[in-house]
């Protein structure tokens, strides 16, 4: 799930005024503007901010290229505008926030784990030269000092809220780790999605056990917000798998293709039967019966190469899809129709909702 649950919810703080960097607004059709006008009236009801990990520099951007449009971390607090935060960065892959302080974000980047304080504005690289190219990051809500990062060569763990890090990957072979999911019901229970399958630790990463081998890399792992025993994972060309017993046993999900790379999955936080999956060539797939059957909801999107998809926790039936090198699109009917919303030529690696204080 891409909603980050606060450890101490319920504290409301005033919304800081604007950012010093770029504000972007996409040109929208009239009907969409009208819809947004209605939405803006509901902005005060929004309990989460939507963050984007985005590369806006296009296909030609490599290390050393001139930056034309800032990439990296963007936030929308009203679902209409986006604000760039911190440095431009073309390889910000995913993010989370400190469970005790939603204003402190943790970013998984090419440079390692970055802590972004002040709601994303003030950055510090927390890891050293030997822990880089982080792919995923997660706090343990039951042990909020503990943070886990998936690296291309293993797993890094911090026991002091990201201040210091050490490798803890004993038992993992082929240690490329794309996805990390912390079981919110038990401190120190973590699932890692690696090149060769899903590993579980029950002891805060001291030891890991392979619970589900996969033929290809696990790309995403999510725990259901409704039933903590339910986990869902996607892979590169090995389909999707579902676990109903906390990740110990997995079953292949019928109806989700295995010939394409799946990028991510998200649960609808308001409806336990609804899930959405996306991928390269897969488009957007939706299930409204808990994953038993799947419906292709790609029609209306410009292409079938969808990098990420997420369900809005605050707006009913609202989902977002990020087609490769295109605008982020929104749907207010759970994928039946789509409209452009943010950016133009974007690769959006991740979309994350962070609760407001």
């Amino acid at each position, binding site marked *: 799930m891409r909603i980050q649950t606060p450890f101490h919810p319920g504290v409301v703080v005033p919304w800081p005024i604007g950012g010093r960097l770029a504000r972007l607004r996409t040109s929208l059709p009239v009907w969409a503007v009208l819809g947004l006008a209605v939405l803006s009236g509901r902005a005060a009801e929004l309990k989460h901010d939507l963050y984007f990990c985005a590369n806006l520099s296009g*296909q*030609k951007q*490599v*290390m*050393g*290229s*001139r*930056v034309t449009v800032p990439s990296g971390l963007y936030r929308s607090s009203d679902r209409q505008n986006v604000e760039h935060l911190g*440095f*431009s*960065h*073309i*390889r910000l892959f995913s993010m989370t926030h400190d469970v005790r302080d939603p204003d402190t974000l943790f970013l998984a980047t*090419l*440079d*390692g784990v970055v*802590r972004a304080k002040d709601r994303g504005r*003030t*950055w*510090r*690289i927390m890891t*050293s*030269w*030997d822990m*880089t*190219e982080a*792919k995923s990051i997660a706090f343990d809500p039951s042990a909020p000092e503990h943070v886990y990062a998936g690296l*291309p*060569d293993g797993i890094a763990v911090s026991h002091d809220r990201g201040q210091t890090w050490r490798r803890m990957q004993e038992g993992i072979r*082929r240690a*490329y780790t794309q996805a990390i999911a912390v079981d919110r019901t038990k401190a120190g229970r973590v699932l890692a999605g690696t*090149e060769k399958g899903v590993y579980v630790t029950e002891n805060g990463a001291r030891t890991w056990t392979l619970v589900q081998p996969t033929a290809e*890399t696990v*790309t995403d792992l999510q725990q259901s917000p409704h039933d903590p025993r339910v986990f869902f994972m996607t892979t*590169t060309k090995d389909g999707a798998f579902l676990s109903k017993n906390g990740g110990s046993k997995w079953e292949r999900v019928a109806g989700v293709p295995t010939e*394409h*790379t799946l*990028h991510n999955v998200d649960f609808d936080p308001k409806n336990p039967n609804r899930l959405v999956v996306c991928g*390269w*060539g897969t488009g957007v797939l939706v299930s409204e019966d808990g994953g038993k059957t799947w419906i292709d909801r790609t029609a209306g999107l410009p292409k079938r*190469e969808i*990098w990420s998809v997420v369900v809005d926790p605050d707006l009913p039936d609202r989902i977002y899809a990020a087609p*490769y090198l295109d605008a982020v699109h929104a749907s207010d009917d759970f994928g039946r129709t789509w409209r452009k919303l943010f950016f133009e030529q974007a*690769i959006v690696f991740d979309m994350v909702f962070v609760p407001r204080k």
Partner: protein
Amino acid sequence: MNVVRIFLWPVVALSAASLWAQPSFTGPAPVPTVINDASLRRAAFLERRDEVVNWRALLAKPGEPATVGLAEIAAKLARREDAALCSERLIELMKTPSGDMFWMFPVTCISYLGRDQLTPAAKTAVREAWRTYMPLRGDTENHWVMYYMSLYLMTQLYPDDPGESWFNGKSSVEISRESRAWLLDWMRITTTIGQGEYDATHYIGEYVISMLFLATWAQEPEMRQRGQMMLDYILGDFAVDTLNGIYIGAHARTDDRQVLEKWNGLSSFFAWLFFGNCPPPAAYGGWGIYFAVVAQNYELPEVIYRIATDRDGPYTQFERKRTRHRWRNSDLRNAPVFKTTHVTADYAIGSDQGGLLQPIQQHSWDVTWAVPDPRGVHNTIFSVQPHYSTFELMMYFTEMPDYMPSSVTFQGKPTYTSDAKFLGGSPYEQIFQQDDALISLSDIPAGVNFEQINGFFSKDLTRLEEDDSGWIFVQGGRAYIAYRPLAPYEWRPLEGGGKRLYSPHRQNGTIIQVASESEFGSWDEFKTKIRVLPLQITREPKPRVAFTTLRGKRVEFAYDAEPRVDGRTIDRAKQWKLFEGPYLNADVGSQRLTMTHGRLRRILDFNTVTITNSVLPK
């Protein structure tokens, strides 16, 4: 190798006189010459160095600020001129920093060159840019060496600054410690199991520039010494793999241009600068300026100079390198690379063992022949099994797979997905080289993107004859070359001249035997001797060749099997040292390289951080 030994003062004088008239990259090609007198050799080097700096400085036009970029500022500061203009422009340029580590090292260079020249305001602008601009660490080894070298040196200038003053939020002390640790680890791994981006025709520049800066400006004596030792190490490795300055044999990385026009790349700038035996590339290879502005602080050891320019005869150099980091699709983080390079005065042939050793720009083998002026000349012949895949890219990059192949073609590697490509490794190619004979075998699974072999036949071949025996006989320069395709083929024209041997068969390969024109009474004699060489070719179920070379070695090589030479199995994993040959020798894991030429010996010992020079007894 025969060389001309002449007294060089007239050459130096002539060079100086023509300095302003014509840059060397448009001037006559130098005649390979050995300068025995150390002072003259140094003077010639400094002349070339000055030529680069002066040329670049003059690109800055009075009254045209846009002509003054970082490179021109570096050149002017090196000449200690126009400090006010440099400061003014630097303040402007620091408003829009861009380029990541390719921005970091020029700015580091300027910061040091300008320590006593730049205005306080310019220094402040530079300092502020390191707080407000976040250069990325990058994803390849040359990126990292530039990144950490730059950080190491920049924090020396501001040793007590807090984390808030640097883009990464770390204090100077933390950055310095981390950068030093990375540099030491890179030196350790390179000198124990080999360089990752080995023998890279362009990226050699990024390494040697970084090491020169370290050797010049590191305050810590150990890091200064290590910088010099790594410079020696990389340039010695380069020297032994050159033919008249041209980088030969297998490369971790080259590019679509230089893989054909072997001279045309940044590596030739360093050959020209240090060895004086080839022209420099246009604009001195671009990045060459950043070496030149500090080059006077390094003196190439004579032993390296002589390895490059003064050879007694043919030699074979064996080297072990490593792949760059493998993230997926491999149990090995750094797999070994086994190189063989055979060099004569007329030609060189070099190879690795085939396979996916590097992503995208690997060049596994070729023959290069000597030419008087290499500019515009495609003085090479080779074949490749064209391949691209997400499998390859996932192995060496950490990103999601599917978008990578097409993205690569937009990022300076336009032929990556082309069936006519001549660049890149293949998991379906295995290679063995014995002296100046080579066998490349391919076993291509059905259904992969390209089920073929591409052979490159240059426009600059002076002969090309398809023989009834199945051999294709060609001549390039003074090299006689016999090329044997293992399967039927057809010819495809090449843009820019020459033609492509296209052989669309999955069990396939190439046999090459090279010799010098001087070994034969006639062209016909060469052909006759090749035709009678014992040769057995089997293609099914996997390709297999048994071939007795022109040098009398019986080589048996089958796909997926260790090669055998005269009945003895060759176990490259056991036999290949880090370096082994007449000039460079190092054991795996030793961190100790011995460079030898005649009686000269230089030992780089990274265990003790010592350099030992000696002259062996007669």
